[in-house]
C-alpha cells in the first residue's frame, strides 16, 4: 500500500535531508520497520527503549491523529499521507 511520510525539520538531519519518503506498508508497525531499515539513526527518536512510540511524538494520517483511527491497528489506505509531528513542534529558528 504506497503511502507518503512527511519528515519534520527536526528529524531531517537523520534522513539525509529527505523531507518525505514513499513506501508500501500496511500498518504502523511495518512503517516503523521500513524507517528503521532506511534510516537507522531515526529509530531512537521515534520509539523509546521499550519500543513504545515516544510520548511527545504525534502521528497523523491525512490530518487525523492516528489514535482516533485505531492507532497500531489502523490499516493504511493507498495514498495516505502520514505526518510525524512533535507534540510541541520545533519551528524554523
Amino acid at each position, binding site marked *: 500500500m504506497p503511502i507518503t511520510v512527511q519528515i*519534520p*525539520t*527536526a528529524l531531517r*538531519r537523520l534522513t539525509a535531508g529527505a523531507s518525505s519518503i514513499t513506501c508500501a506498508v500496511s500498518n504502523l508497525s511495518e512503517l516503523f520497520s521500513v524507517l528503521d531499515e532506511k534510516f537507522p539513526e531515526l529509530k*531512537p*527518536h521515534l520509539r523509546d527503549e521499550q519500543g513504545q512510540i*515516544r*510520548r*511527545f*511524538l*504525534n502521528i*497523523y494520517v491525512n*490530518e487525523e*491523529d492516528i*489514535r*482516533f483511527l485505531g492507532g497500531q491497528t489502523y490499516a493504511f489506505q493507498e495514498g495516505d499521507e502520514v*505526518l510525524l*509531528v*512533535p*507534540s*510541541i*513542534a*520545533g*519551528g*524554523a*529558528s
Partner: protein
Amino acid sequence: MSHYELRCRECGRSWGNQPRSICDDCFSPLEVAYDYDALKGSISRERIAQRPPNMWRYSELLPLPQGFEPRLPVGFTPLLQAPRMAAQLSGTAGAANLYIKNDAVCLPTLSFKDRVVAVALAQAKAFGFDTVSCSSTGNLANAVAAHAAREGLKAWIFIPSDLEPAKILGTNVFGAKVVRIAGNYDQVNRLCSQIADEHRWGFVNVNLRPYYAEGSKTVGFEIAEQLGWRLPDNVVCPMAGGSLIVKIKKAFDELVKLGLVEGKEVKFFGAQATGCSPISTAVKAGSSEIEPQKPSTIARSLAIGNPADGHYAIKTIKGSGGWSEDVSDPELIDSIKLLAETEGVFTETAGGVTIGTARKLYRQDRILPEETTVLCITGNGLKTTDALTGIYPTEQAIAPKLAEFEAYLQQTLNSGDAPAEIPGVVAAGVGA
C-alpha cells in the same frame, strides 16, 4: 551570560537560549532552567515590595533578555476573598479562606495570557523576529495581537473558525491578520507546527513556548505574595494545554528554594469541561498518559483535546495529592452566575469550569472549608457573553413615570422575581 537557559525536561541536555521548544535527541519539551545559586543574594521580599505592582517585579525569575524594558503593567491582579461564594460551595457559613485570583482583569486583554505573551514577545524581539504568531482558542489570540501592536511587530493569528465573536473581534481590532481554520484547536495547532517549520516566525506557543510558559509562574508568585508570603493549602486551576497548573507549582517551588516562603505541601486540583476532559479522565483512571479527545463544550478556551503539557499536568496533580474533576456545560453556566452573584466577578466559561469543579471538590471533601484555597479565574466574562444568550430575557420597557415604576415594583414583588438576599443560583444536580 544570562542566568537562565533551555534544558530538555526528560534527558536534561542543555540548549542555550534560542527559539526552540523540543530536544532533537528525544523529542521531549524544553524548559527554562535558572542558576538559583546566583539569584539567592539578589532577590528578597523587601526588594520585590519596592517595585511597581505588576508581574515584572519578579523579573529575576523570568527569562527576560538583557536590557529588557517592560512597556506594559501586566499582571498583579487582585486576590479576592470570596466568603459569600465559599458559603455556597462548601455548604458551611464563615469559610473565610477561599480566594479568587482574578485574571479576568489582567491588562491589557483581560486574561492570564497577557502574562505569557509579555515574556514570549520580549524574547521574540531579542531573537530578531519581525512577525509573531500563535494557534489560539481566543484569549491568546487577543493577547498576542495587542502586545504585537504595542511592540510594532506583525501578528498572524490562527484560530478555530467557531470561536466566540468577541474573541475574534478582540483580535482583529489590533490590526492582526486572523486566519480562521475549519477545524478544532488541535488541528489548528498541528497546522501551526507545520507552518513553524516553513516560516521564520516567532510562534509564541511553538518555538517560543519554553519562554512563554514561564510567564504563567507570575500567577503563583503573586498568590504567595498576596497571601502575605505564604503558600495556600490548595490551588484549583483550569486546564486546556495543561501548562498553567505546572507553572504555578514551579513558581511555588522556586519561592521555597530562594527562601522567600516557607515550604509547604500544596495540593493542585485541575478543572476541565466534561466535553473536553483528557487530563481529568486520565487522573480519575489513574493513568499517566493522555488519550486525546474530540472537544465538545461551550468552554472553548479549554477545548484542547490533545494537551501538550497534559502528561506534566497529571504528574503535578498526582504528585501533590490533588485531584481533577470536570463539569458539564449547564454546571459551568450556573457557576459563572454563582461567582457573579456572590462576589461581583464576571468570568468566562473557563472560570465557570473552575468554580463548578471547586464545588465538586468541596462536596467530595477533597477540599475542606477551613483550608486556604485559591481558585484561578483566568478570563473575562465579557468575551463569552454568547454562552449566556437567552438566560436573561429582555425586560419590557416601562414609561418614565413614578406611578409606572411603583406598579412594576409591586408586580415584581408579587411574582417573586425580586433579587434574593442570598442567591441560590446553582441548579440541583451540580454535586459530585
